[in-house]
């Protein structure tokens, strides 16, 4: 069994750690590229959301590298993600691609089923070994988030963001290669030290919150490197969704404590959105309120085109904007989005956000902060 799974930002590091320590043979799809998009789009339903198409592209590319089994998550709706696997399976089998799909449905469907599937994957491993593998993967998930958080914080502040970017890439790679928890921790400490020594500019950057659908937020390819774009325009970015927090909440049932800014923002969605709407609709509204309350200079919503929960969230923004005076911008993204358009809208948005913020004079020099 040569197992693969779709990309979502840095998730591959975490899942690889888990599967390798379970003794599985992992074939990672090549990093998502234009080719992935082409392959995915060619065989996907036209109106399926962008993550669906990227997933499919990932599978096909992984198969070229020799994968024969796909590990995928399921769901119980109403977001479309819950039915991805079944449709993708149908598409693959019609294409004559011989790949088995192991779909992990959430435990509330059937606990026994998920147990059986794990057993099917790992064979005779003891539960203690499984626990150790999960703990190791969790350690990497935390490390990845810490490293990323630092990157977002420092990007608008350092003199040479490209050097910072390199340190970040190196750290990710070292985390990915690390064989035990100690090494992972050492990598993180080293990264903190190295980035701490970088030359800083004395600025008070604009602060922008990112909200929206999880895949689009976490996968730089799907959001056209939104965080990097913002960072290079001199903006400090924070986001509503962090990988480790999401894992903790959805897979560990909130057992552990993960500290991040938007942790409790979900509740702020009422009175604007009073019902669960699937996906991350409620989180999007709640976190937008949260960012507004914490006096951010603007909030950007990211969603794949036709994403239902995000459309609902976007629809209630006018009510929210009445109570909180905060600039909001929404991007619906898919394979047809153009970089120049995104960049122009971002620059215009930031100009406006900066103009209404008290911090303006300090850093604005023309429309672009840094060329």
């Amino acid at each position, binding site marked *: 069994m040569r197992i693969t799974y779709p990309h979502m930002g840095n998730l591959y590091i975490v899942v690889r750690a888990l599967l390798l320590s379970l003794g599985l043979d992992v074939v990672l799809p090549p990093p998502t590229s234009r080719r992935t998009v082409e392959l995915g789009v060619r065989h996907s339903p036209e109106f399926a959301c962008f993550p*669906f198409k990227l997933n499919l592209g990932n599978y096909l590319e992984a198969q070229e590298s020799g994968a024969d089994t796909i590990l995928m998550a399921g769901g119980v709706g*109403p977001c479309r993600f*819950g039915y991805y696997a079944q*449709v993708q399976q149908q598409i693959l089998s019609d294409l004559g691609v011989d790949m088995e799909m192991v779909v992990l449905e959430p435990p509330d469907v059937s606990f026994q089923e998920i147990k059986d599937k794990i057993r099917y994957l790992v064979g005779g491993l003891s539960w203690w070994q499984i626990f150790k593998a999960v703990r190791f993967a969790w350690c990497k998930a935390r490390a990845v988030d810490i490293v990323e958080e630092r990157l977002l914080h420092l990007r608008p502040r350092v003199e040479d963001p490209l050097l910072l970017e390199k340190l970040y890439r190196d750290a990710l790679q070292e985390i990915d290669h690390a064989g035990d928890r100690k090494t992972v921790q050492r990598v993180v400490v080293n990264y903190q030290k190295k980035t701490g020594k970088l030359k800083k500019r004395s600025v008070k950057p604009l602060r922008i919150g990112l909200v929206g659908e999880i895949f689009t937020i976490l996968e730089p390819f799907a959001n056209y490197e939104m965080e990097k774009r913002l960072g290079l325009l001199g903006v400090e970015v924070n986001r509503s969704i962090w990988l480790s927090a999401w894992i903790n909440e959805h897979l560990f049932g909130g057992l552990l404590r993960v500290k991040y800014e938007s942790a409790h923002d979900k509740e702020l969605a009422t009175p604007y959105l009073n*019902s*669960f709407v*699937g996906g991350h609709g409620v989180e999007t509204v709640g976190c937008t309120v949260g960012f507004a309350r914490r006096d951010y200079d603007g909030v950007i919503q990211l969603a794949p085109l036709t994403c239902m929960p995000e459309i*609902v969230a976007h*629809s209630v923004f006018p009510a929210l904007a009445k109570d909180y005076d905060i600039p909001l911008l929404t991007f619906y993204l898919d394979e047809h989005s153009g970089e120049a358009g995104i960049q122009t809208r971002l620059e215009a948005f930031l100009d406006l956000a900066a103009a209404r913020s008290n911090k303006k004079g300090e850093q604005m020099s023309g429309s672009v902060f840094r060329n």
Partner: protein
Amino acid sequence: MGVIKIKRVGIPRALLYYYYYPLWHEFFTRLGCEVVLSPETNKAILDQGIKNSLSEACLPVKVYFGHAAYLAGRVDYLFVPRLSRVEAKAYICPKFMGIPDMLRARINKLPPLIDTTVDAGKEGNSVQCWVDCLRDAGNRLAADRKLVEDALDAALEAQQFFWKRLNSGMILTEAIKGTAIPETPVDSSSKPLRIGLIGHPYNIYDPYISMNLIKKLHQLGAVVVTPESLEADEIEEEASKLPKRLFWALGKRMIGSAFRFFSSQKLDGVIYLTSFGCGPEALVEELVARMAKQQNMPLMMLTIDEHTGEAGINTRLEAFTEMIVWRLKYADHIPPYGESVHCR
């Protein structure tokens, strides 16, 4: 008793109006309210809807916004139930779950909304969830518990009657009006085409949105079969053939009827009407299309939105029906190119 002002409850003629209007109408009438139904969709209503809603929303939701905006100044309450799960473990669509909030955020001067929740949860059933929703609504409007319970009974009866009429083969737009059964335009001299029409009721039965699709098909000499003529059990049975249960109630209806249409309704072709940007349909229609191919059933996908041109629809309908006639006529011939397109 003093003079009681009769409360006017507005019901938008859109979305699930096409499934549940008899229930709602009877209920609010029995409570002593005046039910105000918005007129059939027209240009002005659609324009209002487009103006008030988000451009990314699908056409039926925009139309709903238009109807709500139309009613806003004319009624005391607007009945906008929050539709979560209308049967156990099956949602409709996130937009239906958020629609009261969406309306509140985007339409000015909205009357108070009756936005009680319909949620069958994980074990409930498709009738009880409505009983709960309406009871909740009734208790807000009228103090008299007995009156609410009586109204509920009457409403359920009206809805049952409506369902019975549908199953007897009546076209929904007639059944909902409570008029007598109309003649189906069957031309006895020639054997008419039998075309299955799949699509959400708020698309196919809204003559403005669908541009009179059913009538057009009749004029082309076809008999139209819709999912409404199937029993709920039949649909459920077909839908359960999927590898995983669908968690969208309407999606399940579409796929269940499509499978039944393909296998046992002796149809000559199937038309699938969807609205642009419909989330669940994006996946459901893919499964239906792949199944149609396997079963060798001619299938035409019609995607509509507010920009759809009527001439384009006409042309496609004519072409589709003509192709089917050819297929039936020349079914025994060897095709000049490639694989036979007609293998019956």
